[in-house]
């Protein structure tokens, strides 16, 4: 499954990030200190590459490492095998939680980790720091994806960025007039589109309401939509409860979303660029914007298991999937902005889709900066507040049940 389940697993992460921040001092002295205040365990980093082991075991979100078994034309794993001699076995996982558990078995070499799993993997000592000088294609990765709080600790990268995407304000221009400019169109209490609004079905959607409040109600003091104290959470929940009667359905899989927009069962809500493209391809009216106040989004990174049995092939995979061809194929299939600057040219020529990167704002740093990437809410406030305790993902889940009623 695609994104839905990824958000699904935020909870476990919450707990872990907490654990980490709580007992950071007990980890090895050689560890690295993260901005969030935890110390990463001291996992050795590869100094140089050796002979390839002839095999690599990949743990991936469905759609990130297609080997042609679902569609012979969708295959960018086989070219990798031919080029490197590393026979790849691909396992898909459904949730970040599952990925973290599978990595711990030691059976896998690389994993595509989302922002809600990365810190957990780093803190748990499950992934190794990545020596980016060994990755020939690392230089082509967009700078705003490097050394981010979700994929690095104290300037040390822990992986190869894959791609990112935004949760967009999406609407049917034939029905929604005038065109919306802000998230208030889905959150205001008496919407003219009542009964046709479609929010994302996950507790993490509370962050969208928090982001809305951040702009409309600055007195609440929300600085980061993933760092809400009790009172702020209650306010965000109130917004969502007011939205509830106007909801046509909460969506979690793209087919549902696509159908609902095409049939007119939903006319406005949160969506993803590639869903918008699919609807567009069916020649149905659809528009998506990133409102000025910004939005939430996701960003994924490929990481190498600390216990990897095939580290050299693992590096080869990272280099390939972050390289122009691998990154282009996976990001194009998955429907997200590729991390590699050269991937755009490949997509333009191979897939004959020159506008792909523009559509996904792949090169637009200002655009990317407007996004609050999915992060797990933890009780040590992510915005640096120390006087209050923030609400955790468990609290959010509870609240989400109550919102839906």
């Amino acid at each position, binding site marked *: 499954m695609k994104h839905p389940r990824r958000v699904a697993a935020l909870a476990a992460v919450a707990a872990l990030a907490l*654990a980490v921040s709580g007992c950071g001092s007990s980890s090895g002295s050689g560890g690295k200190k993260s901005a969030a205040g935890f110390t990463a365990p001291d996992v050795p980093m590869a100094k140089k590459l050796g002979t390839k082991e002839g095999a690599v075991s990949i743990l991936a979100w469905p759609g990130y490492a297609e080997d042609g078994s679902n569609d012979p034309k969708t295959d960018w794993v086989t070219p990798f095998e031919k080029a490197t001699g590393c026979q790849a076995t691909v396992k898909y996982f459904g949730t970040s939680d599952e990925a973290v558990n599978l990595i711990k078995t030691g059976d896998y070499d690389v994993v595509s980790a989302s922002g809600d799993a990365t810190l957990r993997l780093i803190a748990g000592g499950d992934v190794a720091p990545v020596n980016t000088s060994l990755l020939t294609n690392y230089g082509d990765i967009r700078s705003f994806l490097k050394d981010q709080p979700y994929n690095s600790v104290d300037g040390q990268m822990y992986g190869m960025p894959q791609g990112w995407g935004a949760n967009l304000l999406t609407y049917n221009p034939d029905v929604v007039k005038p065109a919306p400019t802000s998230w208030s169109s889905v959150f205001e209490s008496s919407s003219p589109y009542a009964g046709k609004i479609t929010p994302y079905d996950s507790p993490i959607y509370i962050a969208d309401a928090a982001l809305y409040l951040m702009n409309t109600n600055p007195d609440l003091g929300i600085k980061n939509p993933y760092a809400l104290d009790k009172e702020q959470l209650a306010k965000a929940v109130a917004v969502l409860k007011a939205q509830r009667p106007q909801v046509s359905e909460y969506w979690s899989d793209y087919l549902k979303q696509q159908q609902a927009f095409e*049939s007119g*069962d939903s006319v406005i809500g949160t969506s993803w660029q590639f869903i918008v493209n699919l609807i567009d391809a069916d020649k149905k009216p659809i528009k998506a914007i990133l409102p000025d106040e910004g939005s939430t989004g996701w960003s994924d990174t490929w990481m190498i298991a600390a216990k990897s049995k095939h580290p050299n092939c693992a590096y080869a995979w990272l280099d390939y999937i972050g390289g122009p061809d691998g990154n282009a194929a996976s990001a194009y299939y998955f429907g997200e902005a590729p991390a590699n600057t050269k991937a755009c040219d490949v997509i333009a020529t191979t897939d004959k889709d020159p506008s792909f990167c523009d559509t996904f704002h792949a090169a637009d740093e200002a655009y990317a900066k407007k996004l609050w990437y999915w992060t797990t809410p933890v009780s040590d406030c992510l915005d640096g507040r120390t006087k209050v305790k923030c609400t955790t993902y468990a609290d959010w889940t509870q609240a989400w049940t109550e919102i839906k009623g």
Partner: protein
Amino acid sequence: MLWLGVAYLGALGALFLAAFWTTNEFTGDLVKVFTLDNFRQLLQLPVYRTITARTLGVAVLVTLVDAALALPVAFFMAKVARPGLQRLLVIAVLMPLWASYLVKAYAWRGMLSQSGPLSWLGISPGYGLTGLVVTLAYLWLPYMILPVYAGLQKLPDSLLEASADLGAPALTTFRRVVLPLVFPALVAGSIFTFSLTMGDYIAVKIVGGPTQMLGNVVADNYGVANNLPFAAAYAVVPVLVMLGYLGVVRRTGALENL
């Protein structure tokens, strides 16, 4: 055999033991210390009562709809149709069981859509409770027809004829003769429709609109929130309901008609 029974009961027992635990907010690990917090939360927050009531209501409705549809069909199959047709009808009823549950649910999503085939006929329930009841009733219908058909087959024709000979109108025969005798079979079918409805969380997402059912809360707490204890605690509710139901219907002999 007994091993399986013990293993299954053991699994259930372990699950309900877990309902009294909690997760460590720190590590996400289970904290194996006895606590009633999960149950307290279940009882105190009105949202869970609402969801339970909604789920039960849907289960009852689905069962009634299925019973109403299954009776005439099963009766026709068992008592009217000739053997050849009868065999064909059994196949016709069994066949949909082989089509994927998910695909059928998505087919209903298409049917119920505001611009779907149903709206051409002027009916457009849209996604929500109505659509959910319709879809679930559709999905579980064979599970109701088959036991009722089996029950009716066992009913001797002579009884119906005797009733008719005594001058009873068809409706009276149905009410006084058929219904009491086929009742255990109906109950047997209802065990399926009831339990399947109570545990469903996938069809709800597909056709239920914003509706949330018991199954969703359990699945979300386990899969999304990684909170097994709370999921286990809430799973106690359908177990109690089903055990209670089985206890009540045991006397009708329905369990032997499953």
